[in-house]
């Protein structure tokens, strides 16, 4: 299994807008909060995939807010089974398609992209086992974790993706608590350790980058995984209008690096220059507001961890640079003129 050897361009904004008009895959009228990052992530990804899609959705905000029976926001085949098994359910669908092609029951040229959407809780925590199994079996599926860093649907409880010191409803502040006292787990690295052909981190703030990654994932003849940071105004204590701005701070501080791992080779997609101090990310959100006061050395800890994360990532991508030198797709797509923002590479 190897990724495409062709350049992968993001979907042009105009083309996305046209598809949104003519063949919408995800419709409005759902009940996601104002300013929620999830529908931006879903639309960008679905509109970037050239083939028909089948979607499996884990239990969480997206599922609950888009399919209140008998209504639906989905104009593509969509299945929800449970919270922890989206990857397994999708692997059954993908296996079914292979079985039916082999039997001649459906045409082999019918290319479908199998897209899973699951939250961080449904991925980092309770769904990790089923994700691992699906990755290992090598199904041709694109697993998208929309990472809003907590169990939002059930009222902002801590998950394995919740950052250090974040206030959640199960990590409240108190005389002996500064919020979440555990470090978040590095899920992207865990997935990469499965040696699947395509793994990437993206953010709701950089939709051109997200679009390109979705297209590459769709072209990948094996498991592809996207971990997409998705702002949650309700859980993060941010204004709906700041959804993109806040997520961009995660990228600009290096807290949430944009990178991809193609056939086990790392490439950083964007280097903030200068990389902003992590306080710029923390101070933009209510869930970290308590750090403005008495916080010991927790901010220094967070900054040190981000620095270390960058150092490692730069090391790895420098070591893997030779792999991309030969690949035409390594040529960075031009940034869309209409969207001023970080410089892509």
């Amino acid at each position, binding site marked *: 299994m190897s990724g495409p050897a062709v350049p992968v361009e993001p979907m042009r904004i105009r083309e996305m807008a046209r598809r949104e008009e003519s063949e919408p895959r995800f419709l409005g009228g759902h009940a996601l909060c104002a300013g929620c990052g999830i529908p931006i992530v879903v639309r960008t990804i679905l509109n970037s995939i050239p083939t028909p899609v089948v979607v499996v959705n884990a239990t969480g905000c997206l599922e609950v807010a888009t*399919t209140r029976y008998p209504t639906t926001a989905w*104009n593509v085949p969509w299945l929800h089974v449970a919270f922890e098994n989206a990857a397994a359910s999708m692997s*059954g669908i993908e296996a079914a398609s292979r079985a039916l092609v082999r039997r001649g029951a459906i045409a082999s040229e019918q290319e479908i992209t199998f897209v899973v959407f699951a939250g961080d809780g449904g991925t980092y925590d309770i769904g990790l086992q089923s994700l691992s199994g699906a990755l290992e079996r090598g199904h041709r599926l694109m697993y998208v974790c929309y990472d809003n860093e907590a169990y939002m649907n059930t009222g902002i409880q801590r998950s394995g993706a919740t950052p250090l010191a974040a206030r959640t409803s199960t990590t409240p502040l108190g005389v002996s608590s500064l919020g979440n006292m555990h470090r978040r787990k590095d899920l992207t690295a865990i997935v990469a350790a499965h040696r699947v052909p395509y793994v990437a981190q993206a953010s709701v703030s950089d939709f051109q980058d997200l679009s390109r990654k979705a297209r590459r994932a769709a072209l990948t003849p094996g498991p592809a995984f996207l971990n997409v940071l998705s702002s949650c105004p309700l859980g993060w204590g941010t204004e709906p209008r700041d959804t993109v701005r806040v997520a961009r701070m995660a990228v600009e501080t290096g807290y949430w690096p944009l990178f991809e791992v193609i056939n086990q080779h790392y490439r950083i997609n964007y280097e903030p220059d200068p990389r902003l101090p992590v306080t710029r990310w923390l101070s933009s959100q209510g869930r970290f507001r308590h750090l403005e006061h008495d916080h010991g050395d927790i901010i220094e800890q967070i900054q040190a961890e981000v620095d270390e994360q960058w150092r490692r990532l730069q090391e790895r991508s420098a070591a893997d640079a030779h792999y991309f030198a030969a690949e035409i797709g390594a040529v960075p797509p031009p940034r869309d003129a209409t969207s001023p923002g970080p410089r892509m590479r």
Partner: protein
Amino acid sequence: MALTAAPDSEPVWRAKHPRTRLLTGAHAAAEAMRQMDPDVVPVYPITPQTPIVEAFAQFVADGRVHTELMHMESEHSAMSAAVGAALAGARTMTATASQGLAYMIEVVYIAAGLRAPVVLALGNRALSGPINIHGDHSDAMLARDSGAVVAFAENAQEAYDLMLMAPRLAEHSDVLLPVMVGQDGFTITHSAEPVETLADEAVAAFVGPYHVATPLLETAHPVTEGAFAMPDSYFELRCQVQAANERTLEVWERVAEEYAALSGRLLAPVDPYRLEDAGAVVITMGSAAGTIKDVVDRLRDRGEKVGLLKLRAFRPFPLPQILGLLRPGQHVAVLERALSPGAYPPLFADVASFLVRDHDVRSFVFGLGGRDLGFEEVEIAFEDLKQPAPSPAPIRYLGLGKEGPV
């Protein structure tokens, strides 16, 4: 079967005639699966079911089926994949037992609610703790209220036959529910018996092609499956599962007749044995029926009017069939191998719920964790039925010795 066919006419002979061979229950189930050639089979090992998926994996390795065999990382994922595959448009079967069923039970309920016609071979085994790998029916009771159809085989032959009937029940448009075919761990799964198998072509014709109305793979006709149901719709949707499960009885009767025409074996939801003039009747499920039939014969030889009513269907509960076969005034002992601590055991509770007015119904539990049921214990139950009925009926335990439960 006296068959004298020239070697070169063998294929023709095979197409028309059954043959008998020595198979364990597990291999009989696997053979049935090979003949049905399902599209997708997600598997995960657990004793005593494992020989089913091992034998089936060999069929896949030998290219004898078209099946996509999926090596899952848990039973929870196996049932999840099965639901996805079945709704995608593929005939899907799996197998499990005990802790495996416990682990996947969340998704069994969902499979029923999503109306995914998955066929599941169950090697009935006790539940932990303490851990025990031997046969009883505790595991199947987990699925009792799931909406799935729950069937029990008496022997390897019935395991084979019920497996072949299973997709016809599961996929029937009046049903669309998962179907579990239970066979007692080790007693059936690992015991070789003569099993009469049908010709492959006959099986293929009987089972027919798989069809779902709105497969997920039909991207031109998008459907939303597994939506979020609020109090304004959940009640109706679960009642649809109730109604579908109830309708399964009629479908079962018809499919059983069709299968009998093909095989000569009628696998009705219930199976009476020497019931005609019986004053004392045992009701049971699974392999114990074989032992009990022997005891019935012995007691009949002594002039006692006793009989057996074996249930193959547990869900749907074959109420009309049972009522049609029993007569008021009979003394009934329910022998079962599961508990519901703090209450009457499940089968007794079901039977007593409607027989209690006109019958004397008594509860006996046996064989937990694979303990053998001997002739003597069955005789104790029939002997008990001669005594005046105690009220309320106590739960009696067969095979615990004089001391009874501690």
